[in-house]
């Protein structure tokens, strides 16, 4: 498990993806992007609205959010996956085992449609390993590529990990290294990635959390999350005191 400082950095990086007035979805059981949403709402995006969360009344059934995203109204969706490859293909479903069998996960969920429907997809991953960043996924649940006969509202943009921010370059149809977090190196990130990572335009060091961001996180953001994510908040706050 990543440490508290890294989790806070990742929450801040999630928050920085969010602009005011955007519609977004962070997925259930993901405290770090959830903290990011609340942080952005607290500091610079008071009118950003997360589907079925906080002050937004719930939809009728699962289909209604699907319609919203297919209609092109969801600006940002935080996704996860089992594998992601150099071309931005994602896999939620099957991993090939050394003995030739296939390991089954839970299923494709909504990825084969949502990955094409959100305006921006941000991948969020609490471990940065070559097991996740593979050269070629074992099963393409959804593809990031654009081609002339394919209609899509958007695609993968950034991948946030404990080491770095990676970015999908649609022209090159490939994943590049956008920034490395303080305390880590390009070589370390490359070693943890199963394919070769070109440096993105504007590559640099990840801008660390500002004091204002950390204050908001430690105050109103954790306060508002204590009901839904009590263990996460307790862990973050215990470290806050000792750290």
């Amino acid at each position, binding site marked *: 498990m990543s440490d508290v400082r890294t989790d806070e950095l990742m929450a801040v990086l999630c928050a920085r993806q969010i602009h005011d007035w955007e519609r977004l979805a962070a997925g259930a*059981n993901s405290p770090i992007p959830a903290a990011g949403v609340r942080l952005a709402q607290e500091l610079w995006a008071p009118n950003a609205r997360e589907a079925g969360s906080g002050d937004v*009344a*719930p*939809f*009728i*059934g*699962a*289909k209604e959010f*699907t319609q919203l995203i*297919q209609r092109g109204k969801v600006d940002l969706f935080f996704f996860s996956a089992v594998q992601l490859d150099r071309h931005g*293909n994602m896999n939620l479903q099957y991993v090939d085992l050394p003995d030739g*069998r296939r390991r*089954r*996960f*839970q*299923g*494709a*969920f*909504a*990825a*084969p*449609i*949502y*990955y*094409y*429907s959100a305006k921006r997809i941000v991948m969020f991953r609490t471990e940065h390993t070559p097991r996740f960043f593979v050269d070629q996924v074992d*099963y*393409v*649940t*959804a*593809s990031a*590529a654009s081609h*002339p*006969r*394919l*209609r*899509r509202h958007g695609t993968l943009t950034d991948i946030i990990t404990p080491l770095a921010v990676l970015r999908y370059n649609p022209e090159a149809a490939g994943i590049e290294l956008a920034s490395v977090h303080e305390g880590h190196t390009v070589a370390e990130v490359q070693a943890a990635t199963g394919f070769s990572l070109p440096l993105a335009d504007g590559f640099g060091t990840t801008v660390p959390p500002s004091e204002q961001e950390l204050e908001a996180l430690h105050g109103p953001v954790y306060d508002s999350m204590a009901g839904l994510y009590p263990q996460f908040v307790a862990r973050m706050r215990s470290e806050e005191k000792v750290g």
Partner: protein
Amino acid sequence: MAELYRSLAELAELVPDGTRLCLPKQYPFALLRELVRQGRRDLDIVAAPTGNFGVDFLVAAGAVRSVEAGAIHLNEYGFALNFNRAWEAGQVRFIESSCPIIEIGLHAGSAGLSFTPVPGLIGSDILRDRPDFLVVPDPYDPEVDVVLAPSIAPDVALIHGLRADPHGNVVCSIYNDERLVAQASTTVLATVEEVREDALDVLAFDEQVIPSIYFDALAVAPRGAHPLGAHGLYEDDHAALRIYVQAAKSAETMRNYVDRVVRGTADEAEYRRLAVEELSHV
């Protein structure tokens, strides 16, 4: 009370072997147990749009031939152990899909259409696993392609309602797909926690009424969602769920679980007694 109301056993009899059965996630678990007691087999499940304990349980009991779903899991307990084991052993077929495809496929079924366009999907390996999905030039924009998928019009839908009035109007939460599933399916059966004259007097912001005209038969099943919860009435029974997940770790312990908990109870009254004694605190 309207003639719509029948016994739980009578409802189960309306689901023959080989039924294409649609299940939203608020399972009528008492009715699922009754199907197993009656030895139902070869069910083709459409999970709306994902499946958890209810689907995994029917698979464990040997009642299922195939499952069409966006995903199958055991909620916070992780993988669907019985389903995955049966799938690996080739005992159950998984029909690859995705939540939005099932949702819009059910919508097309509900509207009497034979197919529906589906966005996205191009480049996904799911298209290889679903030869019945067609990639065609968009008739309104031939410069781009669009995927077509067959509509989903299940034979029978099974729903669990929070309460109903004596005329058979059923109140559900809005969090699952009871309404869509009722619209799409040929026969619609529901169990309800209770029947009350005032069931429709006041709704919460997250409740809806499914009109009686959808239903072919209803049965009263108090605590009918156990071991899962019923929205706003009672929580998931985690003691009972942990016993389930523990049993699910091997085919043999799961067989014992099904024999003891379901085949070993003559009806739901016995199940509730067993649940109080052995499983947890119903």
